[in-house]
């Protein structure tokens, strides 16, 4: 009898412990973490190339992967979350804002659903994308198909974009735009604003249309400047000033700061542009400004 009782008791304890162990995971010994055993994939060109030691203005002096590996990676079906598709999709955003943007219509890339890239002989590389775009003021979203061609060859040419997002543009902003246009035309003094947004991310509600207009005008620059190795966003409007005109046009001079993600540089541009509801934003002049990072006084940009 004693033996039986002892056995049953032991069995019960064993079962309880087995359940307990099963719940908390298999027993393991805590191992002291060692330095990571890193797997190095053989790369024929792992020796870094030295960047040119010239002035940085206008050049991206960032050490990039050897071109051939990048080429191989960014062809065929693309991972929509990886940077090649994301950068190309951002270019589509800049294109849409350049063409369709206004003080009451601002487009943002929301998501890339799928992408494909292929080399086009003697032309460059073409991306085909399915994306979702958000109209940020009205908060509507639409799916778009787009194609981006990054040209190769002599000179620095801008990407060529084709996109169809019909639904988005059917939102009627006419009343608001007309009212704003009238305000710009009839105001006694010419409007002007600085630091949109300010250091705290704040923009006065009355100034928001000027911020939107600057984003649209900047989009033309960002579209022009984009390559497969860049990702642009407008960081801030340093200054926007309405200029007097003798005709129906509403005209602005602005100084914007663009953030380029890959180099992490802040690039200053001066833009001259017009706006009217029927014509949209038209950039008349664009000029990159040299900027001294560490000067005590910023250079006079007027």
């Amino acid at each position, binding site marked *: 009898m004693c033996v039986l009782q002892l056995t049953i008791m032991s069995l019960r304890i064993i079962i309880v412990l087995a359940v307990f162990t099963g719940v*908390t995971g298999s027993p393991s010994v805590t191992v002291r973490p060692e330095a990571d055993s890193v797997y190095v994939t053989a790369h024929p060109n792992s020796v870094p190339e030295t960047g040119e030691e010239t002035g940085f203005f206008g050049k991206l002096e960032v*050490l*990039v992967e050897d071109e051939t590996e990048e080429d191989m990676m960014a062809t065929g079906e693309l991972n929509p979350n990886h940077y090649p598709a994301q950068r190309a999709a951002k270019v589509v955003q800049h294109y849409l804002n350049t063409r369709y943007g206004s003080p009451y219509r601002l487009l943002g890339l929301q998501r890339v659903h799928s992408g494909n890239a292929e080399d086009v002989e003697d032309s460059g590389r073409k991306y085909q994308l399915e994306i979702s775009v958000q109209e940020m003021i009205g908060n509507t979203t639409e799916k778009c198909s787009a194609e981006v061609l990054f040209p190769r060859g002599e000179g620095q040419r801008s990407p060529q974009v084709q996109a169809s997002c019909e639904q988005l543009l059917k939102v009627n902003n006419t009343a608001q735009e007309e009212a704003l246009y009238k305000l710009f035309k009839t105001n006694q003094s010419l409007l002007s604003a600085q630091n949109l947004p*300010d250091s*705290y991310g704040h923009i006065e509600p009355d100034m928001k249309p000027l911020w939107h207009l600057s984003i649209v005008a900047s989009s033309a620059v960002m579209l022009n400047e984009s390559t497969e190795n860049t990702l642009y*966003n407008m960081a801030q409007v340093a200054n926007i000033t309405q200029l007097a005109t003798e005709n129906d046009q509403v005209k602005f001079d602005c100084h914007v700061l663009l953030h380029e993600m890959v*180099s992490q*540089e802040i690039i200053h541009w001066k833009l001259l542009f017009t706006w009217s509801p029927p014509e949209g934003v038209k950039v008349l002049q664009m000029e990159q400004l040299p900027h001294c990072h560490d000067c005590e006084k910023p250079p006079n940009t007027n």
Partner: protein
Amino acid sequence: MVPKDNLEDFAGHKTDHHEVQVEYDYFKFHPMPEITDWMSQVVKDYPEVVTTVDYGQTYENRVISLLKIGLNTGEKKKAIWMDCGIHAREWIAPAFCQYFVREILHAYKTDPKMQTMMKNIDFYVTPVLNKDGYIYSWKDNTTRLWRKNRSPGPLGCNCSGTDLNRNFDAIWGSIGVSFNCCSQVFCGTHPASEPEAQAVTYFVGSRKEDFLCFLTIHSYGQLLLIPYGNPNYTASNYDELLKVGLGAADAIRSVHGMNYTVGTSPDVLYANAGSSRDWARLQGIPLAYTFELRDKGIFGFQLPEDQIQPACEEAYSGAMHIITYAHDKTFNAAVATAAATLWTMLLAVGVTGTTLM
């Protein structure tokens, strides 16, 4: 900050203290002196769990400090590392570190899980690592977008500053950097040439076996980046890093619906060498992540203050997912080891008992 008569401490708790307490606004951006005062106040309010540790100096000779949060058991404990503000202009990051501290201290009061974690691990939180840069970014409108530290350039250079997140000794200088001292990604004159990088290197390096995870907080982009920044290198626990990162992204999405992309820097953003995250992983710290907080470019570095709260809430959820995983993996496994030992002993007793009887 306005003194109030409703007696609340820096964590927003009612206290018995009769001195006038000031309520700290976690949803505004604070200049460095206010953050320093806040750190002192947190220590005063939670002396049993919080101490300050000074662990280095910036180029301009400012003390670099962290808050060490956890129950003092008198024994060596496992640890979690979090740093914010390596890049001066990323103001949402220091805001998040402060919010994180508040949240874990709140949870310590009420949540048994957090109480257990505070017994088992210490949290080391550096609210502003690049103090010189942060202070400079507050100077005026023209300095707001400063990124680097404030050390002077090498001889003959017109520009100042080294990118601290390219300066760590982790395949340093190999890719995604510039050797031009004017560049925003200038990696410095040699690995860990910068005092701020040295501070982290010495403090974490001398305790590397203790650290379960290393989280470095940045903005913007809504990304969770895993090692390594150099595409020729794969972490030995890549699958785990990805799985836990995806879990964190799910946790983030459940808060306010925001999508954070998970992946290595070269896949998802750009290749880069010399990051603090890569250095930490190379030391053997298994779970090393870079958080890139809100937004995706519309406001960028100048995130509006009305987004501080939602940005912090979602990031907290993501960080806690990783931290909880790291903790449970270490401490539940230890419990299972004890169970297995007992099991073996009892089996032995059972067998012996049967034989004897």
